């Protein structure tokens, strides 16, 4: 009888101890940060190397690879979402990109805007015993390059770094 009550006491103590360990460990793992890079990040020297009026389309393709989208008058572009996943691509009217350069340049049918982006996600898991959720931050660096197809030369560019 005494043994049975001792065993019960030990079991209760052990259960409490285990629960405390789980909660404590979960609280500690709150600090976990996961950063995922899916694309090649833009290098400062490459961006600074773009010289409007001098840099060629071929150089751009060599440095950054094929663009994610090419904007030209009247076209609707399909742009892959920076965060990836199973979401459908964004459908964007080319005019929204061409508009970026419209006040400084007289745009013709030969003008194209090459669009690139590089995304980095930061996930901070928040645990509460067994239920967890994650706070996700998305940082996107974006690059738009105005190219004249007739001359094959870069006429302008805009670069936006998010962090």
């Amino acid at each position, binding site marked *: 009888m005494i043994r049975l009550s001792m065993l019960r006491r030990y079991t209760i103590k052990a259960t409490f101890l285990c629960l405390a360990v789980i909660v404590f*460990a979960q609280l500690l793992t709150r600090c976990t940060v*996961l950063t995922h890079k899916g694309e090649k990040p833009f290098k400062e020297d490459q961006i600074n190397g773009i010289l409007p009026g001098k840099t060629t389309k071929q150089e751009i393709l060599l440095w950054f690879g094929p663009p*994610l*989208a090419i904007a030209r008058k009247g076209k609707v572009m399909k742009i892959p979402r920076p965060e990836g996943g199973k979401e459908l691509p964004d459908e964007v009217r080319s005019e929204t990109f061409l508009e970026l350069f419209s006040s400084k340049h007289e745009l013709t049918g030969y003008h194209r805007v090459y669009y690139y982006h590089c995304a980095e996600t930061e996930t901070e898991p928040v645990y509460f015993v067994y239920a967890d959720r994650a706070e996700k931050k998305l940082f996107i660096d974006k690059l738009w390059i105005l190219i004249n197809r007739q001359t094959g030369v870069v006429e302008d560019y805009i670069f936006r770094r998010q962090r």
Partner: protein
Amino acid sequence: MRKFLPLAVAGFIIIFLWGCAPAPPVTTGRPLEDGKIIRIQPGKTTKEAVIEWFGAPMAIAVQGEVLKIQTEASWAKNMPRGGYYFEIDSETFFELFSSKHELTEYHRIYYYYHAVSTKYAVILVFAAHERGKTVIDKLWILVNEETGIVEDYVFRKH
């Protein structure tokens, strides 16, 4: 109480490592070895040889079409994520070759990639920092379907 201490410590370590342990790399696609890449000879190499060396392409770009490409598997939180598809205009791929080649309706671009996703963790006493990284090597091969010959290629190693 002392009896349960080792058990508690072990439990603590297991739970602590649960979300932070380094994981084996996750790969997508076949490795694009330099030895095979240099064997591609524009104007000589046939489409059959390309398929023999690299396997079926991850995507084939046709002019004027929207290309559906499988995303690479990568570490996200505690498990590999992938197998989704994204859409991109084929035009973006053809742009790579447009200034050197007169592209016709017979031209196709065979697209290959090899992605390796890794993660590692720095586990401190009261904190853990985990970092994941995915590197992708990409290969675009311009093939003329009429002649069955490779006309050009672009390889980008991460």
